[in-house]
């Protein structure tokens, strides 16, 4: 295990903004941290990087306890959400500055910078200032800087949130390949669950400063431990039916099917998704979302049901899954 967080906590004043966090990420594994804003995912990155001190627990990095080490001694490769490029320096100088500060000889620095520029296909941009680059190029410079750090771990704080949707999709495989080539652990923060599923081997869902669930994307989708995870993972969002006062019944839109003895429904809205279609249905149990094959025609009378094994039952008060 190359990163191990044990019982990590962080306070803001009297209030815990992150608590009892246990995580391990192995070499060559990409773990995505997801959750709504304020759930503690960026805080987690900052604690690992050493930008903020942990108020509780310990951080092990590469078999070494780094909890009390200053940021520089942790060897972190971090990609900031804003990229944090130095606006007054050229691309080459942006990459060179860290090496220079660490006292590396000039020939070695030149060689490393030109290597990484080539690897990131940025040779043509070496003399440009960050303001003259496109969003994708800036992101590559930020990544190049992290690579040059020769880090023990990569930390990425929403590295794609400033890019347009198309570019984001294009960059996912490239980014994954680039950082995982080093066989180092990667911790990837995002609020986009599609991105998390595409990038990560495992996903950790944080909620109000607690780790809600950690697992592979399909585990989280098929076997959520709580109502929160069930609604957070999976789009279109899971249908929730309030069958009785003590529990909530969840059924994925993909698990709904047309069946003769099902709930009588009325179609209120239809969204065309290309390979599939999404129906919004008015049922006696409230609004239902249902995903169907694209070629399915709308029948005269709609009756909707599901298989018992597709039911997810949650406690109405605690939101925990009934097993």
């Amino acid at each position, binding site marked *: 295990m190359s990163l191990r967080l044990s019982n990590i906590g962080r306070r803001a004043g009297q209030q815990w903004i992150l608590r009892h966090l246990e995580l391990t990420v192995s070499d060559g594994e990409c773990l995505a941290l997801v959750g709504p804003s304020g759930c503690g995912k960026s805080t987690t990155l900052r604690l690992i990087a*050493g930008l903020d001190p942990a108020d509780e627990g310990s951080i092990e990095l590469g078999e070494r306890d780094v909890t009390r080490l200053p940021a*520089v001694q942790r060897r972190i490769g*971090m990609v900031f959400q*804003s990229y*944090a490029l130095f606006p*007054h320096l*050229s691309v080459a100088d942006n990459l060179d500055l*860290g090496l220079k*500060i660490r006292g590396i000889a000039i020939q070695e620095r030149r060689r490393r910078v030109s290597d990484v520029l080539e690897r990131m296909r940025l040779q043509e941009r070496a003399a440009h200032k960050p303001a003259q680059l496109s969003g994708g190029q800036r992101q590559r410079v930020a990544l190049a800087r992290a690579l040059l750090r020769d880090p023990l771990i990569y930390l990425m704080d929403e590295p794609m949130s400033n890019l347009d949707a198309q570019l984001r999709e294009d960059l996912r495989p490239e980014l994954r390949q680039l950082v995982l080539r080093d066989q180092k652990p990667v911790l990837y923060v995002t609020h986009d669950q599609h991105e998390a599923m595409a990038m990560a081997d495992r996903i950790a869902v944080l909620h109000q400063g607690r780790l809600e669930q950690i697992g592979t994307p399909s585990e989280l989708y098929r076997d959520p431990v709580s109502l929160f995870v069930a609604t957070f993972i999976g789009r279109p969002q899971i249908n929730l039916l309030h069958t009785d006062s003590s529990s909530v019944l969840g059924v994925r839109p993909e698990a709904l099917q047309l069946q003769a003895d099902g709930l009588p429904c009325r179609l209120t809205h239809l969204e065309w998704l290309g390979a599939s279609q999404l129906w919004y249905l008015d049922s006696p149990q409230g609004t239902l979302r249902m995903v169907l094959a694209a070629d399915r025609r709308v029948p005269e009378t709609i009756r909707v049901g599901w298989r018992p094994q597709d039911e997810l039952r949650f406690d109405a008060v605690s939101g925990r899954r009934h097993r």
Partner: protein
Amino acid sequence: MILLLGPAGLLLLVVFAAPLLHYAWLSNHADSVVTGLEPVLNHGANWIRLLQDQRFWQDATQTLRFALVSVGVELLLALAIALLLDQRWRGRGAVRAIALIPWALPTTVMALGWRWIFNTPYGPLDQLAHALGWPSLNLLANPAITWIATVVGDVWKTTPFAALILLAGLQTIPGDLYEALRLEGGSSWVCFRRITLPLLRPYLALALLFRLAQAFGVFDLIQVMTGGGPASSTESLALYAYLNAMRFLDFGYSATVVSGSFLLLLGLCLGGWLLSLGLSRPQRQQEV
């Protein structure tokens, strides 16, 4: 589009170009009690007089010395204050407001205050010297050092303004730049030198420009604190122009003094600009 610039252009013409041109015109005329306060063309006689006027050149040197020392000290202090006020600490808001008070005070009021502080023998500084058994400081009556007293007054009054500009500049610098450098092992000094200072440069230039122009035209502070004395050792060009017009009623020569000061300041700005071009060029090559 051009039309939209009209009002601004007109304003500049009226408040800037027109007086300037008027003074340029008047500087070539005799206009004093001798001519019955009517302008009479005297073909550059004023300008020849200006070139030979030792008092003008002494005042020019004094004004330049005052401006450079005062603005230099002020920017250093302002930078320190701005860095301090940019940090998070309890009571920062109150201190920020208090720090602006000297700038908000009317110059005549604060200049009177400083005149009293430096007063011999009743001012608090002299009282302190007396209590310590030192001789009287005589700060406002010694031609060698009185200009320093005026610098103190000016620095006290205008540092908040420069600090405000620099503080605004500091707050445009994103915090994650510092964090990125910290991860690379940058100390506070490295962060200051590699991020703060270069990114603050346009704001430093702005503060320098504003303050140099103001300090070069200083009038009220000197007039109230020393009246230009002792032995016109603290007299500024603006004060000399004022004296020519209002005391000697020589409006023609006063206009020449004003125009001459303007040309000096223009030359100074051009020189500074060329110097900054020369300084920044090799640096740019180094960056590539």
